């Protein structure tokens, strides 16, 4: 079974080919930080209102550490316990992607925040910005909850591990990051910070896969060990998401403190609740809030993009093309 302790090394016969498919798909999405052009963002930053500047500075401060925390959990917890070589292939790939994200946000902060003291402060956000520290605490709590576990021997161990996986997929990548993306896409829908948006678009594409893989893992474990999922587990997951929503709403309160037209705190809460309900639905759990998405600019993320190539780098191309030259194929 997937959570049996150990380091399975045998790829054939392959037990979980859908993990391997995810690994292959992820490779096709390869992008590099050098492809993201931030130069027009600097002009935009100068034009933003004070309220928007505050929003952006808080947001990038969150980004400065968010992916590093995820990467740490990946190495310290997931890689250890997901006992499938093909699953670990995906996790290795995910780790690479997290590293690229970290590099992207490093580059972003270096570009956005020229003053060295301010830059240091932004990178230290987990320590000195309360709204970010609160989110970090939440993450650490769930990393620590399984940190001591070397082997998942008991039912309780496995349940603790599952909660960790669900926390990172549903709450951190699935809610904290989705919250952050909403701010970026709000700005993009207003035509500013295209560089941030295009990099974030690629990050978002990766994160969508990470979350999907983690939910695959949860589904797989549930199929193999259905008794791990009981009413108590469901209650814990609901509480966890509710707490994550609270963390993110207080972060939103900080970001939107000075008032940003088109992005009210009420709408933001509604959006976060809506996202949380979706994560619960993906886990087969009833919604807590019954909220609807109030943000039309998020609906725009769900439709195919067509960039005017003069203005944007098109992010749609694929890596890893296969086949050989031939002349009689259909097209």
């Amino acid at each position, binding site marked *: 079974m997937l959570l049996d302790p150990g380091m399975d090394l045998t790829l054939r016969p392959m037990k979980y080919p859908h993990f391997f*498919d995810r690994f*292959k*798909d992820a490779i*096709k999405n390869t992008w*590099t930080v*050098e*492809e993201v052009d931030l130069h*027009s963002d600097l002009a935009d930053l100068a034009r933003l209102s004070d309220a928007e500047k505050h929003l952006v500075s808080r947001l990038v401060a969150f980004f400065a550490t968010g992916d590093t925390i995820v990467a740490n959990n990946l190495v310290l917890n997931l890689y250890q316990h997901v006992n499938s070589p093909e699953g670990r292939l995906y996790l290795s790939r995910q780790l690479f992607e997290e590293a690229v994200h970290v590099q992207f946000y490093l580059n972003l902060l270096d570009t956005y925040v020229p003053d060295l003291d301010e830059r240091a402060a932004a990178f230290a956000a987990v320590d000195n910005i309360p709204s970010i520290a609160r989110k970090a605490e939440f993450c650490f709590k769930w990393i620590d909850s399984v940190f001591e576990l070397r082997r998942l021997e008991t039912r309780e161990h496995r349940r603790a591990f599952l909660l960790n996986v669900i926390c990172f997929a549903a709450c951190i990548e699935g809610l904290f990051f*989705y919250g952050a993306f909403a701010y970026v*896409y709000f700005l993009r*829908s207003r035509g500013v910070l*295209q560089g941030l948006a295009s990099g974030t*678009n690629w990050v978002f*594409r990766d994160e*969508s896969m990470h979350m*999907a893989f983690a939910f695959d893992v949860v589904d797989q474990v549930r199929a193999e060990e259905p008794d791990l999922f009981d009413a108590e587990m469901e209650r814990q997951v609901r509480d966890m998401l*509710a*707490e994550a929503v*609270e963390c993110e709403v*207080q972060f*939103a309160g900080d970001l939107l403190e000075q*008032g940003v*037209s*088109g*992005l*009210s705190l*009420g709408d933001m*809460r509604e959006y976060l609740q809506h*996202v949380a309900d*979706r994560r619960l*639905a*993906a886990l087969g759990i009833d919604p807590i*809030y019954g909220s609807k998405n109030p943000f039309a600019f*998020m*609906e*725009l993320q*769900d*439709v*195919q*993009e*067509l*960039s*005017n190539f*003069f*203005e944007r*780098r098109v*992010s*749609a*191309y*694929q*890596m890893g*093309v*296969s*086949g*050989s*030259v031939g*002349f009689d*194929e*259909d*097209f």
Partner: protein
Amino acid sequence: MTLTPQKSGVPEQRRHVMQVRKRNGDLVPVDVNKIVKAVELWVADLDEVDPLRVATRTISGLYDGATTAELDKLSIQTAAELIGEEPQYSRLAARLLAAYVGKEVRGQGVESFSQSIRFAHGLGLIGDETAAFVARNARKLDDAVDPDGDRRFEYFGLRTVADRYLLRHPTGRVVVETPQYWLLRVACGLSRNANEAIGFYRLMSSLAYLPSSPTLFNSGTRHTQMSSCFLVDSPKDELDSIYERYHQVAKLSKFSGGIGIAWSRIRGRGALIRGTNGKSNGIVPFLKTLDAGVAAVNQGGRRKGAACVYLEPWHPDVEEFLELRDNTGEDSRRTHNLNLANWIPDEFMRRVEADAEWSLIDPSDAPELPDLFGEAFDEAYRGAEKKAVKTIKARDLYGRMMRTLAQTGNGWMTFKDRSNALSNQTGEPGNTIHLSNLCTEILEVNSDDETAVCNLGSINLGAHVGADGVDWVRLRETVRTAVVFLDRVIDINYYPSAQAAASNPRWRPVGLGLMGLQDAFFRLRLPFDSAEARELSTRVQEEILLTALEVSADLAANHGAHPAYAQTRAAKGDLHPDLWNAPISQPDRWNALRTRIAGHGLRNSLLVAIAPTATIASIAGAYECIEPQVSNLFKRETMSGEFLQINTYLVRELKSRNLWTAGIRERIKRAEGSVQGITELPEDVRQLFRTAWELPQRALIDLAAARAPFIDQSQSLNLFMAAPTIGKLSSMYLHAWKAGLKTTYYLRSRPATRIQQATVSLIPELTPAETCSLENPESCEACQ
């Protein structure tokens, strides 16, 4: 910690009455009725619009203490966000925006067109001649402004105009002209008398024709650079020439021109440099410098410069060239801003087909190759093969080209021999087309001291089509007006480089294009790949070329033929369709035209080119050039932000069948804009509304080949393949070559996976049809 999810500690914004700050600084409570009234002013003919909905949603997004200007902007944005549910909101948002812009203009004391010109002239934005012209004809021109003109815009079009085309106060950054003043200003910049200006203004204001962006940006201003395209010959194989080209490219870029530049004359890596007895590092380091130079030039603050480098496939560095856009590898050997194109002689394609060897030859060993085409090239190439630097299999190189296309969309396939053999400008030896331009639709001769130039404009075909078909009389009228003004640009234009100024008056080429072909097909209910569609597109193209030649012959009768006319094929009696041996449908007009040309020649060596029309199609609310729709529902990302685009023809169809419901909308969204799964629609309707991804690409190529005899330059032909493989691509491009196309443009493909959709409901169980996804073909066994 106890968790009580429904309650939160953060104060609710909507609990107390929200206030807005008026322009005079007073705080007043937000009044929903006031917003409703403001919206109601604009909805008389928009029966599906709900003003209360716009008002309440606007307030929901507002914060306490926002300004009334923020409130106005938010209401525009809010209306725009409802377009996905009801396309009429696009009109509403456009009208609210027009009102906002009008207020801004009047806020500076500008009440009429002539005042806006006087005001902008005072700010140093308008050229003296245009200012004097408008002053002389002030009353007549002021009366010509159509007060309802702005009602023809969709939101995305008007937003683009407002953000990028209207002249702004140099320091205050507020706009100083309304959209209608802008179009009239463009017309005045190109006119000799008021009637001419008014006629041209009316044509543009009707959105039936628009000149290209540089003309729309700069006509009537102090910097009248109105050409879109520049084709720069390869630098000579020496350092001074290379650096001269950097300088020239920078100057051309500065005034919003797109650059094509060949690089085939520069020696490859490892070739000897006699002056220093060293070895060359090849073309890549020089292209890296070009890349940085292009990125550094800022075109009026709105976009970076853009260039495409053309290389012939016998060049020894061609393999490194094909990797320039890869996103992995050593960054010093990558050019992230340059576009790449292959300039391919037929000999290469023949060897690919025959699975033969291909020689890479250093240009320092065969400097004549870039100037030769057809049999002369074949002979010289075969002769030079004994000096080959390297021999590879032609198919291996072709495969690498396909890989580059699949991975980057770049590395466009353009065909040197067809481009030259079927050009009016290559009637005499020594005149060679060395490359195409940034968008692969311009094919003009150039040389070391002549940089080819082209100014463009596009007819909105959809505006010339009713339920019964094409309004041929109106189309002819549009072409007549358009060609006169395209020709006019040549004389008024400011040329940023001496080489450009040397070429354009001699050849006087223009590029009259087309947009909204897909609109025409939708209106007439013709599937893109039908025989009727192909016939219609071909006949439209014939009409355009024929009329354009007639106008050019008239211009020649009045002003004389262009100076290089004697060197053209037309001077020998060969018109473009003759070069193709293409059947024509209006023999009498063609014959009359021949007689006229025999008498006075032509004013323009080239007349027709189909450009991509990305931005002007947005302004006109038309589908781009000759392209099929990419999706029934998609978003555009531009510097103005993101915009939902919905197929209004489909919406009308669905409404007429009572199928325009939230459920169907969600299914279309989940299918990424495809309606093939909407089985409530009959098969023929689904066929009509296929997207570019769902059409056979063979049909796109065949349509292009059928109209090509009536395009004396070329066409920007994008091809679409959701999940390209080397096999499919190599088959497709071989067909494109055999069909006789001169050029192709981007290969569009789709990401391997996508962002999880955030707003469509989760489906717990996928039906088999839905798991067969275009995005994940390798996991899909149903298709294999």
